[in-house]
């Protein structure tokens, strides 16, 4: 599942301990970001909030761990990319441009890798579901208690949820990928 030869941030990902170290670095980066976000919310509140930086950082983290349209260390999960709009494909055909066959996508994952991908996605789904349930329970409980605290950190909770949805499967793959001492 790991793309061979990739060195994100100069890290060699050969070896499980190195991959786990890389995940820890990414998590530390996420923690720093979350801390800064919370600090901003505490100081300025929700009203004075601009999500541009969060969007940029989220894209950066996604690129660090791989996944959809990001050249990270984990193999591309999706189906081979086609043109964005059907019209685009039509125009290309009209002007004689051959559709370039994607070298990334489902074809790069064999059945074992697809199985692994699905398993890690399910694990991530279970974690995110629990987290969402916890948030919902906190939201309801604090509402009963008439505590407005949740309103203040609401955007942070949503951001955390989105972050988990985006990068957790890739992180789990990086974390769990076994070392294979293969001689060809």
């Amino acid at each position: 599942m790991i793309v061979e030869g990739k060195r994100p941030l100069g890290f060699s990902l050969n070896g499980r301990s190195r991959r786990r170290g890389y995940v820890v670095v990414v998590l530390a980066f996420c923690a720093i970001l979350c801390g800064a976000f919370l600090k901003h919310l505490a100081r300025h509140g929700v009203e004075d909030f601009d999500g541009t930086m969060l969007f940029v950082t989220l894209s950066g983290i996604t690129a660090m761990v791989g996944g959809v349209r990001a050249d990270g260390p984990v193999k591309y999960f999706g189906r081979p990319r086609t043109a964005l709009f059907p019209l685009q494909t039509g125009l290309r055909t009209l002007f004689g441009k051959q559709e370039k066959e994607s070298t990334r996508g489902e074809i790069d994952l064999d059945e074992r890798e697809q199985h692994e991908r699905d398993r890690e996605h399910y694990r991530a789904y279970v974690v995110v579901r629990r987290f969402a349930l916890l948030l919902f329970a906190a939201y309801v409980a604090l509402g009963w208690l008439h505590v407005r605290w949740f309103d203040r950190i609401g955007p942070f909770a949503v951001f955390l949820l989105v972050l988990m949805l985006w990068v957790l499967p890739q992180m789990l793959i990086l974390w769990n990928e076994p070392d294979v001492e293969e001689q060809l």
Partner: protein
Amino acid sequence: MKENEKGTGEAGGIYNRIAVLRAERGVSRQELADAVGVNYQTIGFLERGDYGPSLKLAFQIAEYFALPLEAVFATKPFTPLSEQVYGKGGGQ
């Protein structure tokens, strides 16, 4: 070459002789992987019994070695070839 004696866990009780057949015929993991359309690491996972192949992949591997499916895969551990040829005790 040790035959897959695990056949548990991820492999779901499927045993195979891929490693033995490969060694016998001098086929590398990469060659076999290219022939059946999987990553070479997947061949390693199969040999160690860490992964149970789909029916399609099992047939492809058996076809590659030109052997019937049951000669390559089984639900019970294979008897070592030395034992089959020389009997228990290795012909002492």
